């Protein structure tokens, strides 16, 4: 217990070989071994764990899809029973939507945000650790049921009455319900962390019109998550109450089955944007690097992210056009859904113009980013079609919708993410991925994807319903379904090539250096991989492109990267004002701690005990949570102006 400093004039330093790197290394380094592994709060370590874990769920969800495609490759195949098929398509959706698509972006943002913002960590490093551990626990929780044959089986949007106890008596849905609430806690604390990190820890001079677009994307998604996630958590909680305590929220006799759909989609539609906007941000930052020019229309692109999300809160009923709602509601939500294409199109035109006006350097990352524009347009057009109520009435619950969702989610999430892996892998590991294998990787995925998913539009228009476990001969779908299955295996082969490339390049990849792509943003100004403290001195930012200022020469001002705030009295970073990023506080950053891990364990015990109603065990979980939180927030220092005469034992006062 030491008394804290009251205020000080922060020292400036010029970076040399021996100063201040080694000193900061000692302050920021996580201790090696098991304890360090469980207690680290380094955003880069947590970001990498997020990426690896999310990718593991992507592979699981992918294998589930391939098994289904074997079943559907021809008519009347009986590899899977209907119940097995139900669990597979549900787990496929849950894995991809909840356990892969959002967490992979959180992983990239966790890793990149402080590096992009010129800071030494996120605003709440421990909350970051909590967010990861809770995510991991929720993923294992949901998969625990599936492994023993009791996985969720009512589709990822889990409509009542089929998900009610009367029709679905096992624990399948209970595990899904509580697991998703646990995941919601992880998403919420992570989102709060991004919002505050954006507001308070940008490098001096990085006013809000100078942040990379990825920051805008993740920020917008995070604000939306704060407002939207409670809806789905509540829906699942009420469903669990209906199932376990005979309440009447969703039953037809007393409650309202449609309430489920409202609560689910009031969350669900903003969520769709939450899992694409950060990926669109990656493209907006990565693509210009390879086009050798700044993105066209920075302000329009940044604002269109925000506008897309704002409109995204007003379109949820387009998932419910076929439920018999009044036509006034249908007209309103149809109109809102059509209008939302306008801000989306702004980004598309900005990217196209950036390629058009630039001098593109064709790399694997560029191919993934650029192809995303094509896939986004196809997914956008099919979305625009189903936004029209009469068209939707024809197409709802057919494979057309399956095609749409995959063009949107693979097109705007997976392709940018793989591009981002090619782009930022050198920063994360210090080694470049192999470009030759990269080309094979890209073309296999691109061809496989379109072969696998484009024909789904056609079988959907021909009337093939989604979620069927098999289909009879003579429907006219058999040939197309065989092509779809072949395409999906080709796509999977492409993903396998990525894994091979990562495994090989980790050992034998070409050394990357600080800035292998000659990219403009701050993360490329530090070493690859970055040291635990990110930057020797806090950069001072004078433009949107701190590393391109000499080429662009937009103004005489230059960012300063090799001389700046030192901040070495313990783990520290600079706090700046929310809009203009003027320094107003020296932030003391927390040490490594196991409290987040313990809190995640406590919550998991609480939720797991609730399934068999073991209330004593749930109480133990709650106590672990309370103790972890108390330890977490225990003040670290006694202020020098404290009126209390007695400092704590061992304490001294300045």
């Amino acid at each position, binding site marked *: 217990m030491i008394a804290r400093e*009251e205020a*000080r004039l922060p020292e400036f330093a010029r970076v040399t070989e021996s100063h201040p790197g080694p000193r900061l290394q000692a302050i920021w380094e996580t201790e090696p071994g098991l304890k360090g592994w469980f207690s680290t709060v380094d955003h880069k370590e947590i970001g990498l764990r997020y990426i690896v874990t999310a990718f593991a769920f992507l592979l699981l969800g992918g294998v589930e899809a391939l098994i289904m495609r074997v079943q559907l490759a021809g008519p009347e195949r009986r590899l899977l029973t209907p119940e097995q098929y139900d669990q597979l398509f549900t787990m496929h959706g849950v894995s991809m939507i909840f356990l892969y698509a959002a967490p992979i972006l959180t992983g990239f943002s966790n890793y990149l945000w402080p590096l992009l913002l010129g800071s030494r960590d996120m605003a709440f490093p421990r909350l970051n650790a909590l967010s990861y551990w809770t995510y991991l626990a929720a993923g294992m929780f949901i998969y625990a049921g599936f492994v023993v044959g009791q996985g969720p089986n009512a589709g990822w949007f889990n409509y009542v009455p089929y998900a009610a106890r009367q029709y679905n008596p096992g624990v399948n849905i209970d595990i899904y319900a509580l697991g998703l609430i646990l995941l919601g806690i992880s998403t*919420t604390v992570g989102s709060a962390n991004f919002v505050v990190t954006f507001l308070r820890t940008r490098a001096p001079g990085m006013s809000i019109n100078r942040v990379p677009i990825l920051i805008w994307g993740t920020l917008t998604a995070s604000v939306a998550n704060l*407002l939207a996630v409670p809806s789905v958590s509540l829906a699942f909680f009420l469903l669990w109450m209906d199932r376990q305590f005979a309440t009447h929220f969703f039953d037809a006799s007393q409650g*309202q089955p449609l309430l489920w759909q409202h609560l689910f989609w009031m969350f669900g539609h903003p969520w769709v944007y939450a899992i694409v906007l950060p990926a669109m941000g990656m493209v907006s930052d990565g693509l210009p690097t390879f086009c050798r020019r700044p993105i066209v229309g920075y302000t329009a692109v940044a604002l269109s992210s925000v506008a897309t999300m704002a409109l995204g809160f007003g379109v949820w009923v387009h998932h419910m056009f076929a439920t018999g709602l009044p036509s006034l509601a249908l007209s309103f939500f149809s109109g809102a859904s059509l209008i939302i294409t306008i801000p989306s199109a702004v980004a598309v035109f900005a990217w196209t113009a950036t390629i058009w006006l630039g001098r593109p350097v064709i790399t694997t990352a560029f191919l993934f980013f650029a192809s995303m524009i094509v896939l986004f347009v196809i997914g956008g057009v099919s979305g625009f079609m189903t936004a029209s109520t009469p068209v939707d009435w024809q197409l709802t619950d057919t494979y057309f919708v399956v095609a749409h969702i995959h063009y949107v989610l693979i097109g705007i999430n997976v392709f940018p993410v793989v591009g981002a892996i090619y782009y930022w892998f050198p920063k994360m590991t210090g080694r470049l991925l192999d470009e030759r294998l990269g080309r094979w990787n890209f073309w296999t995925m691109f061809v496989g994807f379109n072969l696998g998913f484009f024909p789904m539009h056609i079988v959907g228009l021909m009337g093939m319903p989604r979620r069927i476990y098999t289909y009879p001969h003579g429907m006219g779908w058999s040939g197309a379904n065989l092509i779809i299955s072949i395409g999906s295996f080709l796509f999977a082969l492409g993903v396998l090539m990525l894994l091979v490339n990562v495994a090989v390049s980790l050992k034998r990849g070409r050394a990357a250096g600080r800035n292998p792509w000659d990219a403009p943003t701050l993360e490329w100004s530090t070493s690859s991989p970055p040291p635990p403290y990110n930057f020797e001195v806090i950069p001072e930012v004078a433009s949107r492109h701190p590393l391109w200022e000499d080429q662009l020469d937009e103004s005489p001002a230059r960012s300063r990267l090799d001389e700046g705030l030192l901040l070495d009295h313990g783990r520290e970073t600079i706090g700046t004002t929310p809009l203009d990023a003027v320094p107003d506080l020296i932030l*003391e950053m927390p040490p490594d701690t196991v409290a987040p891990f313990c809190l995640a364990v406590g919550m998991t015990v609480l939720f797991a005990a609730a399934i068999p109603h073991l209330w004593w065990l749930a109480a133990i979980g709650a106590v672990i949570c309370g103790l972890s939180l108390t330890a977490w927030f225990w003040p670290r220092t006694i202020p020098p102006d404290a009126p209390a005469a007695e400092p704590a034992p061992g304490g001294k006062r300045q």
Partner: protein
Amino acid sequence: MTEALLAPDVLPVGARGRNSVGWWGMLCLIATESSLFAYLLFSYYFIAVQRTQAWLPDRHPSMALAGPNTLVLLASSAAVWWGEEGVKHGRRGQHLGGLAVGILLGAAFLAVQIFEWKAKHYGLASGSYASLYFTITGFHMVHVAAGVAILTVVLIWSLMGYFSPRHHARVTIAAIYWHFVDAVWLCVFFTFYLSPYLMW
């Protein structure tokens, strides 16, 4: 190379009231919790507008307990505010007293709520009104209990001398959470005790 962008200036170190990241983090928590209660109350109104008056177990819910209890909760907010003013101005008695009174009034609110629950002639599973009533007030009670626990820990830290007129971010952050819990109650109170008079 250009001149320094940054004029060197003396900066405060560490959490400082509303300047602290913790304050902003708490505002995020309040935003998401407000949404939670908005969705809870949406569920109530969504089901309510499709029902007739017969949906209510009592013709109009009695305010005999909830009315005075609302005043108890508002008084506890005032006490916590007064305690926070105490730590800001270095008045230790007011600081500790305000927090302690706030905690006691919060606990009293909980006790009255539990008594009101027990006095109801219907249970959680009696119908959708009853399910909504017990679930929504239950959610609120959990928040009150959490608030009481947080204020208690802050009071212990206060007794241990961790706070000063300049450094009391945890008191400020706990206090805003408490005010939020009280504000939410006003919405819950309006929904269950006043809105039936307007709707039917």
